[in-house]
C-alpha cells in the first residue's frame, strides 16, 4: 500500500526516464536529504560527526567508486586502497608544491591523478579477467603502498603527511559540523553524478561488458575504451575519497592508512551492499563501517561490566555472523533487500 504506484502516469519521455520514477521514492529521497542537511545538524554530537558520519560518508564515496568498476563494469579490483592513497598524496603534494592552490581543486585534481594511475593499472584488464584481474590489481595496491612508504618525496621528507587547514574560497571548514556538511555536499553531488552516469550510454556500455564482453564487442562497444574509462572514473572517485579521508577525516596520515585492508573493507562494502547499485554502496558502507562500532558500544551503553578485550572479540564474532546471515538471506546485498522490502510494502497489509 505504501509503495503502490497506481495512478502515477508517465505522460512524457522525461518522466519515463526519471531517476526515481515512483513518487514515494522522490519524497523519500527529499526527506533523507532534509534529514542529512538539516535534521542531523540539529541533534548530532561532535562524536557523531567525527567518529561516525564523516568517515562513513567518505567510505561510501569510495564504495561508489569501486561499485562503478566492479558492480557495473564487472572488473574486480583490490586496488582501492592504493588509488585512495594516490588521491591523498597527490592532493597533498599539490597543496604544498603549488602556491595558493584552492584546496577543493587540489582534492579533485588528486582524484584526477588517481584516475590516470587507475588507467595505467587498468591496462592488464584487457587481457586478464575475473580472479586473475583481482590479483593484478592487488599488485597495484602493493606497488602503491611501497611507493608511498619508500619514496620520501611524496611525504615531503617528513615522517608523515599533514593535511592543510581546510580553507576554501575564504571559508574555513574547521568545526565538525562544517566538515560534515562539506563532505556531505561532495558525496551527494558525486553520488548523483554516478547515478546518472550508470544510466547513460557509458553506464550501459559498462553493464554490457560486465554481462558478456564478447557480445558487447560484437555490438560495437570498444572494450579498451570502456574498461579503461571504468577504471578512470572509479579511481577518480576513490582518489577523491582518499583525499577527503586524509584532509577532512584524519588530518595526518601514513601509508598504512591506505593498506590492503582498506581495499578489502571497501570491496566488502560493495559486495554486502549490492553489486551494481549506488544505494547499495551507501548501505554497505554504513553496515561495514558503523555496525562494528555500534556493537562495540552496546555493552558500555547498557552498563554491562565486560572487559574491553571481550567487547572487541564479541564485536568480531557478532559482526562476522551478521555478514554471513545477510549474505545467506540475500546474496545480492542490501540493495536487493531494499527492493524486496519495497515489494512487500507495495502489497502491505494484504500480501498474497
Amino acid at each position: 500500500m505504501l509503495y503502490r504506484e497506481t495512478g502515477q502516469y508517465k505522460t512524457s519521455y522525461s518522466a519515463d526516464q526519471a531517476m526515481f520514477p515512483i513518487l514515494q521514492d522522490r519524497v523519500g529521497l527529499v526527506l533523507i536529504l532534509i534529514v542529512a542537511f538539516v535534521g542531523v545538524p540539529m541533534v548530532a554530537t561532535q562524536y557523531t560527526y567525527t567518529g561516525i558520519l564523516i568517515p562513513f560518508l567518505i567510505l561510501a564515496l569510495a564504495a561508489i567508486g569501486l561499485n562503478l568498476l566492479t558492480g557495473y563494469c564487472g572488473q574486480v579490483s583490490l586496488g582501492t586502497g592504493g588509488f585512495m592513497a594516490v588521491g591523498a598524496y597527490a592532493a597533498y603534494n599539490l597543496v604544498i608544491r603549488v602556491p595558493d592552490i584552492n584546496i577543493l581543486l587540489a582534492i579533485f585534481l588528486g582524484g584526477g591523478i588517481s584516475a590516470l594511475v587507475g588507467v595505467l593499472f587498468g591496462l592488464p584488464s584487457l587481457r586478464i579477467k575475473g580472479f586473475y584481474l583481482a590479483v593484478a590489481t592487488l599488485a597495484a595496491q602493493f606497488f602503491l603502498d611501497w611507493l608511498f612508504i619508500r619514496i620520501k618525496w611524496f611525504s615531503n621528507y617528513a615522517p608523515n603527511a599533514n593535511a592543510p587547514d581546510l580553507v576554501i574560497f575564504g571559508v574555513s571548514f574547521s568545526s565538525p559540523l562544517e566538515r560534515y556538511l562539506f563532505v556531505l555536499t561532495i558525496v551527494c553531488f558525486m553520488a548523483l553524478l554516478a547515478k546518472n552516469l550508470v544510466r547513460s550510454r557509458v553506464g550501459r556500455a559498462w553493464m554490457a561488458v560486465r554481462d558478456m564482453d564478447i557480445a558487447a564487442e560484437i555490438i560495437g562497444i570498444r572494450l579498451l575504451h570502456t574498461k579503461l574509462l571504468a577504471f578512470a572514473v572509479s579511481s577518480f572517485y576513490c582518489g577523491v575519497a582518499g583525499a577527503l579521508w586524509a584532509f577532512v577525516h584524519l588530518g595526518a596520515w601514513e601509508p598504512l592508512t591506505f593498506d590492503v585492508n582498506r581495499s578489502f573493507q571497501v570491496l566488502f562494502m560493495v559486495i554486502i551492499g549490492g553489486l551494481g547499485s549506488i544505494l547499495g554502496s551507501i548501505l554497505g558502507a554504513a553496515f561495514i563501517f558503523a555496525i562494528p562500532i555500534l556493537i562495540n558500544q552496546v555493552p558500555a551503553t547498557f552498563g554491562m561490566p565486560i572487559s574491553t578485550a571481550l567487547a572487541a572479540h564479541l564485536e568480531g564474532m557478532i559482526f562476522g555472523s551478521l555478514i554471513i546471515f545477510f549474505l545467506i538471506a540475500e546474496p545480492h546485498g542490501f540493495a536487493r533487500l531494499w527492493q524486496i522490502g519495497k515489494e512487500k510494502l507495495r502489497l502491505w497489509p494484504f500480501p498474497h
Partner: protein
Amino acid sequence: MQFTRLALGLAGAASIAAPLAFSAPAQAQNEQFVPALVYRTGAYAPNGIPFANGRKDYFALLNARDGGINGVKIVYEECETGYATDRGVECYERLKGKGPTGAAAFSPLSTGITFALTEKAPADKIPLLTMGYGRADSVDGSVFQWNFPLTGSYWDAANILMQHIARQAGGADKLKGKRLALVYHDSPYGKEPIAVLEEASKRLGFKFDAMPVTHPGVEQKSTWLQIRQNRPDWVFLWGWGVMNSTSIKEAVAVNYPREKMFGVWWSGAEPDVLPAGDGAKGYYSLALHVAGAVAPVHQEMIKHVYDKGQGAGKKEEIGEVLYNRGLMDGLFVAEAIRTAMGKFGNKPMTGEQVRWGFENLNLTNERIKQLGYEGLAQPVKVSCQDHAGVHSARVQQWDGKKWNFVSDVYRANQDLLRPMIKESADKYAKEKNIKAGCVS
C-alpha cells in the same frame, strides 16, 4: 522466505536503534575522566595488553588507596583500537568529551594514531602523552605544544645505542669502516631513527643499511638472508609486537650472534624474547626503566588492587617490562593532573590545565621515592623547550630468564640532536602555519 523477513526486520531495527546507541549518557560531577586507547586484540595484542593493564591498574590503585588524586576520583575508560589508526581516531572522538571536564590526556601507544591525533589535539585542547614514541621533533614544545614525548624520543634512542656500541668498540673513531644494519618496522615508527643513524654513519664513517620489514613483521626471511650475506657488525632492531620475536628467531636461523643485536626500548620486553626460547639469550635492548616487580608501588598494587581481585591482569604479570611502562605512563598522567591541581585547585582538570601540568611537571628523586617508584622511574623535568623531560636510557640484556642491566645510564647527546629537532620542527611549523612560541 523466513530468512528474508528476518533480515529485513534486523536491518530496519538497526537503522532505528543506531541513532539511539550513539547518544551520550549523563556524567557525575567531581570526577576526573582519564581515557585509554588500548589494543587488547589484533597483531600487537601481546605487547598492548601488559601496557594497558599497568596503566589501568595504576589508576585503580590511586582510587583504592588515595581515593583518587587530591580527593578527585578517577573515572577510567578503555577503548579498543586494535592498533588501527581509523579506530584510534574513532575512540579518541568517542572519549574526548566524556566526564565533567573532558579527557585529561591521551596515550595512544601507536605512532600512526599519534600522528592523526597530533592534528586534532590542539583544536580540542587535550595533551598527548607519547612516552618514548611519537614524533622525535615533538620534543620542541614551542611548536608541538600539546605533545609530550616524555622520557625521550627515537632519536635519543638511536643516539644512545650509537654511544653504547662506540664504547664497546673502544671509542667512536673505532667505528670507521664497520657496518651497521637497522631492521625496522616499515612504518613512521620504524623509520624515525634513520635520520640520526644516517647522520652518524656520515660523521663516523661506517656503513649503514636500513632494512625494512613489512607490517606486521612475520615475514623476514629475505631481510635476514641479506644480513647473513653482509654480516654487519651490529644490528639495531626497531620492531614492535610479533616482529621482535620473529627477528630474534630469524637471527638464530642465520646464526647471527644475538650479542650483536640491540633493540629499541619497544623491542625489549618479555613477549619479544620468550617466543624465541633459548635463542634469545644474549640479546640486548634499551631500557627506560627496570624490569621486574622491584619498586614499592608493585607491593602496594598487590595489596590494594590485586588482593581485592580488582587487578586488570594476573598477579604474576606485575613487573613485566611493558606492565612497568604502563605504570609509568599512568604515573605521568596522574602527576600532570596533580601538578595542574597545584595551580588550578583540587577539582577535575580540563585538558588545557593538564597540559600546563605536563609542561611544569617536575619529578625529582624524592618525589619518585614518595610515589613508590624508586628504582623504576628516572627524574623528569619538563619545560616548554624540552617536552621529553629526560633523555637517558640504559642497556639491558636477556639472560634467558630475565632482563639485566649491563650499562650505566646513557644520556643522549643533545648538542647533536637539538639542531635536527629544531630544523624538523620548524619545517612542520612552516607547513602548518604554526606560530612557534611558549604559552605559560
